[in-house]
Structures are given as C-alpha cells and as structure tokens.
C-alpha cells in the first residue's frame, strides 16, 4: 500500500495503526505537521487529502491528519502549491493568536473532529489503486 497517514492525533493512530501505514508525530503542532507533509512532498509524496480540511482554524485546533501517497512520478506540483498555501494561511492565523492551551476534554473533542474528517476518506480509499 502506498498511502500513509501523517498525523499528530493519537485517536487516529490508535484506531488505524493496524490497518494503515501511519507517521505519528505525537508532540507535533498543527504547523509542524504541515511542514512534515511538505518535506514528504519534496521527497516524492503527493497529497490525497486537503491539508486545510475542517473549518477549525489553524490557531484553534492542534490536530492535523493528512493522507499522502508515494508518488511514482516524482515531484507533484499541485501538492507543493497546496501545502505552501496551507502553511502560509496557518502562519497568518498563528501570527495574531497562538493556539490556546486547551484542557484535556477540549483536546479530545478536537481529536474526535479531526478523526471524523479523515475517517470519511479512509472508508473510501481502498476503492482505488494509485
């Protein structure tokens, strides 16, 4: 399987680690996940999901899950442009307001929403091959 889930959401990791390849970076923030996605794209991955999924703003939620795929044709320009725009946008929000230090209950809500978004995709991802 060529797909990999890049995430800092423990819920996603717990639920899917047996079924999918997961790059779980626990201590990473929202922006760092975007940076990591970008590094992977430069190493030949492409985005399968939108890096800015959900209406939760980058300075609100800490959690981010992105599905990427090993790209046979090297560098995927669309993915680069998309991740760069996502990073730019995230930096715009974080510049004015840092993500608050949420209590555990709220963090858990964020994890739930993030996982829900990625679940909708994972349910369909086996439908295609590369």
């Amino acid at each position, binding site marked *: 399987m060529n797909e990999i889930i890049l995430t800092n959401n423990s819920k996603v990791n717990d639920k899917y680690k047996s079924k999918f390849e997961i790059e779980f970076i626990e201590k990473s923030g929202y922006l760092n996940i975007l*940076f990591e996605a*970008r*590094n992977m794209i*430069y*190493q030949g991955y492409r985005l399968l999901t939108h890096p800015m999924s959900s209406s939760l703003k980058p300075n609100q939620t800490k959690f981010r899950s992105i599905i990427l795929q090993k790209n046979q044709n090297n560098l995927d320009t669309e993915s680069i442009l998309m*991740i*760069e725009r996502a*990073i*730019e946008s995230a*930096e715009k929000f974080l510049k004015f307001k840092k993500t608050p230090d949420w209590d555990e209950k709220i963090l858990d809500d964020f994890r739930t929403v993030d996982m829900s978004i990625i679940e909708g995709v994972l349910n369909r991802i086996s439908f295609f091959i590369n």
Partner: protein
Amino acid sequence: MDTTNLQQKDIKRGETKMKKIKVVHYINNFFAGVGGEEMAHIEPEIKPGVIGPGISLQNYLGDEYEVVATAICGDSYFGENLSDAKSKIIDMIKIYEPDLFIAGPAFNAGRYGVACGAIAKAVQDELGIPSITGMYIENPGVDMYRKDIYIVETAISAADMRNALPKISNLAKKLANNEEILSPIEDGYIERGIRVNYFHEKRGSDRAVDMLLKKMAGDEYITEYPMPVFDRVKPSMAIKDITKSKIAVVTSGGIVPQGNPDKIESSSATKYGVYSIKDMSTMKPEDFMTIHGGYDRAFVLKNPNLVVPLDVLRDMEKNGEIGELANYFISTTGTGTSTGNAKKFGEDLSKMLIEDKVDAVILTST
C-alpha cells in the same frame, strides 16, 4: 447635528490658534536645490523652516500648521546607508517634536520614492506620529511601503506638484486630526491592500446577480476582491549588451559555505546569506555545501556548481561573454519559505543589488 459640528470645529480652531500643528518635511537634495545626481551622495541634514516644495506645502496646509523644519538627504546616500541614514534623520527630526511628517512627493523617482517610503515608515513607527508621502503608482517605493503608510497617488513627474501637494495636505490634515480616512478613491491615496468591512446598500446575492448579468452581457464590472496571487510585475527591460553587464547569482537552492555560518534554515528560511566567490573559479565541494531540506543532496554536495554555476560563469566572464560577475552570491532556501519572508528578502537584497550596480540577476532554484 450641524451646529454641534460647527461648534466643535470652532473650539478646535481656537485651540490650534494658540498652538500650531508642527510638521517636518523631508525632501531629497534635488528638490532642496542642492545640485542634481552629482550631489546625490550628500549626507542628511535638517534646516529650520520650509525649503523648495515646502513653501507651497505650507500654503496648502494653512495657518493651523507650521512646517517647522525640512530634512534633506541625497538619494544615493540614503540608499547606500539605509539604516544609518534612517536613524540620523530620525534623531534630527525628533528635536523638533513634530506632530506630523510629510515626505516628498517623489513622483516616479525610484530611489527618492524608496527613501520617502522608508523614512515615513520609520518616523511613524519610532516617533508614533502620522506620516505620509506621495508617489506615482509605478514607483518601486509604492509596493514596498503601501501597506505601511499612506501614499498619495501623483502623476509621473514633478510637473504634477501643484496637484499633488493639495491632495497630500488634505490627507495629512485628516491624519493629524485623527479623522476617519475614507476609501482610496475618496481620499486619493494608493490602496494599501487592507481589507475593511462596510455595509453595502444591497445584499451580497443581489450584487452577485448584478455582476453576473454584466459579465454575461460583456459589460464592465468590478470584482469586490481582486485575486492577489496573480500580482505580476512588468518584465524589466532586456539587457542591451550582456558583455558589458554585471551579473549576480541568487539561489533558493540552499548553497552555503561549509558549516552554514549564518545558520540558514533548511526549510522555511527566515534569512538569507551573502557569500564571497571572489577569486574563485569554481564552487569547490570542500568550500560549499547544500542545506536544502527537500531533495537528494548527493549530487549537489559533490558539485555545488549544479546550483551556483560559478564554473561556467567565470569562463564566460573570461571570454567576455558577460561583463562582470558580482564577487558574491546570495543564498537562501526556497522550500516553504513564506511569501512574506521571500518578499522581504527580495526587498532587502534588491537594495543591495542596486547599490552594487548589478545589471541582471540569475536566480536558480531546485
């Protein structure tokens, strides 16, 4: 309502009669009557009272304002000694305790425009007083400073002085009185690219239908949000004779001296470095390395000329195919460097390139 306003105005007038609003004006050596290009190197100085266009500016500002001093600096001096010039001028201006600062107008004079923008922004930031200047829309100073200060739009040349000064004084007065600044068209300044909310008389869907009908009919319509990404720069004029030109290499490929002395980040760079290639004929792998985070670095580590093509350029210089190669290259990493940072780098290093009289740039990216 009208009466109250009038009364308030009267009160204000009464106060200002006793104490005029103090203005410092900034002009270059040319407008100060101190020679032309040959004197553009003169250092900053400040003189009490009005000089050159300041005389007419004072008239437009009226009795409630007094241009207490005029700061003068040569454009070359300012450009070549940016931070030094800025701090010297600020120190000079400070003494006069101004309430308002006006620079220029610079019309289409590029270096003058950049100086007016830079000093107006510095005064505004450091002295905390309203600052304003005027320029032609294509002056490079416009794009560098439009988001920071109010720049009144002028025509291309100083022949427009008699139109420009009243516009500048009107907006300057509004700023000094802390009045509400209206839209760019209403108040005559160049749009700063700041998105401001207002209530339209029609709701959005209604406006969308209007716009669609116009678009389908081929009539003119104005989008409410111009796409910013496609902000393009007009291509610069081609080089007439490359064999007489000075060329500099800029790279976003992350080539740095061994050890990365400036600690440039391998991605999302926040800085750039300037590195000497003086007396070098090729990029030796023992001297340079790449810090670029995004790709297989083996080839470039072995031969940095793959990103900074010094070997070829030196040969070309020797053969007279190019005039001269700048004795440094400028380097950063392009991977994920934010548009904002990239723009800032560009602004900074373009100043340096101008100072160094570079005619053309080869920018390499991986």
